[in-house]
């Protein structure tokens, strides 16, 4: 029998169940990019919505009735509570089922999970966000957190590269930031087949030529496919970035989100508990990391 000494049960024999999804309604579907839509959700139970305290960079486990559960990063900022915005790539069974739903349909949500970006530690520093392709989805929460809490940060720079304008996530919103003076918003595309793109054309690392970054006062947050980490690190490290000032958001298979099922384990860390945000120092020291 489990010894009562480690038993801190709160209810009549049944603790809060961390696997319990809470019902949420789809209040908006923004068909942003083919196979990358943004779903805005609101919890049916207002109290759950009020108590939902995410940090930028955390994720939820999203349940689609009959299809299953999948980890999805939160794209909205905690500074804009009330609803959750999930930028979901159509890529598997669960997300496929989600794409068949309509506004007003119900889904299940539990979380938030993961460590998120250490924003309290980052306060008072410059911020460099570097996103490639779909990597913008988890970084958007940090972007809006920084813009809404602008006084907490020094210089804020965003570098985002996509294949072409049509595949750029949150394109209209980000283009509207280009003229703002409180952020250096650098957007680039590998190619511009339509010829209408008014921002940069070229590979993401080239944007480093357009920004002045002080590695001693900057936290860099990087997210993208493996090739982005490779080329971005090749720019960050020569600048003299300390390895624990480079933060990365990682993706792994997950079945629980709460450090039990074992799927997201890397070395001795669980992506769901100790991540999904890792420093570059962690990345070097954990095998199979990137």
């Amino acid at each position, binding site marked *: 029998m489990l010894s009562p000494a480690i038993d801190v049960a709160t209810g009549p024999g049944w603790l809060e169940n961390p696997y319990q999804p809470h019902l949420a309604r789809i209040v908006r579907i923004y068909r942003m990019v083919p196979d990358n839509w943004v779903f805005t959700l609101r919890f049916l139970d207002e109290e759950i919505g009020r108590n939902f305290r995410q940090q930028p960079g955390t994720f939820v486990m999203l349940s689609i009735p*009959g299809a299953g559960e999948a980890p999805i990063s939160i794209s909205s900022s905690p500074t804009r509570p009330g609803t959750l915005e999930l930028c979901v790539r159509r890529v598997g069974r669960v997300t496929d089922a989600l794409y068949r739903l309509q506004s007003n349909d119900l889904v*299940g949500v539990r979380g938030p999970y993961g460590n998120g970006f250490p924003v309290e530690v980052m306060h008072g520093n410059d911020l460099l966000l570097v996103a490639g392709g779909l990597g913008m989805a988890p970084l958007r929460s940090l972007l809006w957190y920084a813009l809404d809490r602008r006084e907490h940060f020094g210089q804020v720079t965003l570098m985002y590269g996509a294949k072409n304008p049509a595949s750029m996530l949150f394109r209209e919103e980000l283009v509207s930031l280009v003229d703002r003076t409180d952020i250096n918003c650098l957007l680039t595309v590998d190619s511009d087949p339509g010829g209408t793109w008014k921002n940069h054309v070229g590979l993401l690392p080239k944007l480093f030529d357009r920004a002045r970054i002080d590695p001693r006062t900057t936290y860099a947050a990087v997210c993208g496919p493996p090739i982005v980490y490779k080329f971005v690190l090749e720019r960050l490290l020569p600048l003299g970035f300390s390895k624990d000032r480079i933060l990365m958001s990682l993706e792994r298979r997950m079945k629980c989100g709460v450090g039990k099922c*074992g799927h997201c384990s890397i*070395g001795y860390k669980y992506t769901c508990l100790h991540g999904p945000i890792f420093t570059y120092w962690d990345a070097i020291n954990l095998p199979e990391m990137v």
Partner: protein
Amino acid sequence: MKILKLPKEQLDFFASVLQQFGEVHAPVRTRAGYSFRALERWSEACLDYDRTVLPPKKYFLPPRETMLTYRRPDGYVAGSEGLNQKLVLFGVHACDIFALNLLDKVFAEGVFPDPYYRTRRRNVAVIGIDCEPDEHCFCPSMRADFVERGFDLFFYDIGDHYLVMVGTALGDDMVLATGPLFTPVADADIVEYKRRSALKKTKYQLEVDLRDLPEIFELEYGSEIWEELGRTCLACGNCSTSCPTCYCYDVQDQVELGSTEGPRVRTADTCLYSQHAAVAGGENFRHSQASRIKFYYYHKQRGFVMEHGRPGCVGCGRCIVHCPVGIHVVDVINRLRGVRDAVASH
């Protein structure tokens, strides 16, 4: 700790008293080997067994369990099947109790305790029994040959009697429910207990050295041994299924045709299966069998140490017994260490 003794000929009477504390399960000899199961009569119990095929973790993390059921309009409703059944496991070896204590670190403690596991853990009493090591046991190397906690009662054979350690108030209730059956230990009993304890220590045939083993794993991350094991391993998962500390699981929603209602079921899983680290979209972070079997050992002998201060292995020997191609954990570790022909020398 309260320590008493029980005359061996009174064991069946004690077992009958135990039924008031829950359905009594004990190791039973089956065609496939020993198995913990509900007893129809006490004479079925085999207390001098070597090891059960499946460890007692099956009572706490069932190989298949309904966690929730989706129903309109209620949403996801938590399952509670079998959670509140009171059981008494009689005859659990020290290594298996040690393994339960390790599973507690993952499932009962920490930030997100698992209510299914914890409820079962609260409803299942554990009565340990001392054992006779065989050629597959290396629990002393893993410091899991003795447990101070995690049992309600623990029985040690001292000849005509069992010396009984009382671990919990529930265990004490079991003792008291028998009336005057249990009596204080005498000096001669203590001498006999210590004699048998010392003798047992000499009977182990396998040994691994835990000192700096995580660092050895780190140094040998690129070892050719992993490629060789990857070619040998059939990915059958026997080692993991029978491991008392393996706990990975998979989750699937099951639906009836034409409906969105149905149960969310978790089933035992293993990192040796090819899809364990595969994500939607086709990426697989452990794409080769070599990388998967390396992860299997790495998590137990290095990852678990970093997280919980000791290996996620208790030296029970099941993975050795059940591997169809003869992969031997002690051999793997000793080869990584550079200790040649470790197993052959025994």
